[in-house]
């Protein structure tokens, strides 16, 4: 049994991690691992980079085609899409955020891992407001594949 089946925590080995080259370009990473009847990410992608054979499949991302626009992050009902772009020593992570307060641009927040534990400081670089707000944070590159939520500390 996988850890996510028992505890709800995805491990890196469960994921299709893009190569360094694609991470530098900035692409979407899917953490949707279960066959559920759902496909808004496929519909939302403007460049047809996300594919599914049937609606019950898990999404496959073509990193060559992916332009890192974030539409799938906004569309995914399971909040299981993230954008990751590694630039030198730091990484930009775009994640869905449905809580209050919404942080300000350049605000220092805490980055949380998949268990909700604080792992490092992060700086908010971009906010795309909506009912699901997309927050782009900057973290040290080593946390690119770990930081998946934020905590606003005021």
């Amino acid at each position, binding site marked *: 049994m996988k850890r996510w*089946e028992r505890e709800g925590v995805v491990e890196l080995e469960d994921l299709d991690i893009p190569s360094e080259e694609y991470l530098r370009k900035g692409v979407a990473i899917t953490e949707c691992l279960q066959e559920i009847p759902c496909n808004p990410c496929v519909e939302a992608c403007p460049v047809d980079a996300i594919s599914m054979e049937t609606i019950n499949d898990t999404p496959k991302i073509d990193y060559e085609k992916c332009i890192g626009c974030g539409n799938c992050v906004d569309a*995914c009902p399971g909040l299981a899409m993230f954008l990751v772009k590694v630039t030198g020593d730091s990484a930009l992570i775009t994640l869905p955020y449905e809580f209050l307060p919404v942080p300000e641009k350049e605000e220092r927040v805490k980055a949380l*891992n998949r268990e909700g534990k604080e792992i490092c400081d992060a700086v908010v670089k971009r906010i795309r407001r909506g*009912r699901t707000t997309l927050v782009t944070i900057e973290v040290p590159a080593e946390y690119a594949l770990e930081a998946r939520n934020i905590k606003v500390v005021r």
Partner: protein
Amino acid sequence: MRIEEHPVLEFERGKEIYFYYNGKKMKAYEGETIAAALHANGITKFSESTKFHRPRGFFCGIGKCSSCLMKVDGVPNVRTCITLVKEGMVVEDNDGELPDGEVQEAKTVEMEVDIAIVGGGAAGLSAAIEASPYASVVVIDENPRPGGQLIKQTHKFFGSKEERAGTRGIEIARLLREEASKKCNILLNTSVIGYYDRGHHFLVAVNRMENVVYEIKARKIIFATGAQENMLVFEGNDLPGIYGAGGVQTLMNVYGVKPGKKGLIVGAGNVGLILAYQLKQAGVDVVAIIEAMPKIGGYMVHAAKVRRCGVPIYTKHSIKRAYGSERVEGATIVELDENWNYVEGSEQDVECDFICLAVGLTPSVRLVAQTGAEITYINEAGGWIALHNEYMETTKEGIYVAGDLANIEEASVAMLEGKIAGLHAAHSIAPVENFDEKMRAYMENLKIFREGVFGARPKMAKEKIRERYHEKMGKGRSG
């Protein structure tokens, strides 16, 4: 206890009004239920058990469990969870006495329609929208707002574009409500209290707020009465502060009232997982989600987003007891072994002021059972079920079922079943153009929904239901 700010919801609170609880003047807002107003004022004990005088609070929040009965303006046994609070209303403890006020004469309204739909949730409203271009339709719902369980779902729905994937439940409820109310008559606060076979289908319904009795003659009836939340057996399970998960969703997401400060959730199916996330969104702490099975039952994406907020999920755990004097003050949880027995010495004390049970649902079958439609116990479907065919028609001609009443499933399925029942009911009154084509599309979508890993149980349930239906009916009326 009121939520002032929410990331997804905006609460439309009506005019400020005052009511009396056991002689004490309290503030409320027009448009909220008595139960919500009492909670907002910090009152969670609504009544006492008759024999041992144990304190009781509400459980289901949708008028199904009778745990919230109180005396309102002299009338005993009023379901406070679905009755709107009014200016100057007198709310008291139930004392088991008969009404002391004068009983008002009720007005009787006779109605004749092609299709009566009982229940205005995802299935009922979808059936109404589908059928009303071809037939006269009335929808009857005993809640103050239509939309069933959709009105408290803040998460975006899964599925395909056709079934409004990516749209939040509350938004789907609004769209359905707007469309249905343009096309047909919706009677709210109105409980159907009986079905009679008078050579035609006949329903008696009562508007509890306005004292109106409806006598409805219908050519077809679609029952979409939904389901009720299951109780779990453990010590102290009747304490105020122990709610059905849906009851808390109603309180929190419809009326903007918090159930407490810190909650424990029992059950890691989708309902329990979604509720944990919604509580966090409302600013309420969740100590843990516990689950008796070795695996999380709900979608992994829901579990993952709850975990990212720091809520732990303990599988192979159950609740042993809840304690507190007037309401929940804590709980003891315990680990389970392979044979579902308590693991000795694994008891843990959990500090919490409310507990939500998300341990499955049982179809609300009692009303449709009055029609004489064949009812059978089917475990996979959640309990007693009215047998039905692929068009959702029961063994009694002209009586249909749809949604959770017809098998516990997702809201997307309820909407599709509603459309199928509505379309077939209309078509059997007068032929509908392109009937075959429309029906085929709905059935194809339904089939796709039941294909994934989560579709296995509902699919098996439906197969059993149809098999028994055909055994009962022979090859006669399967279409």
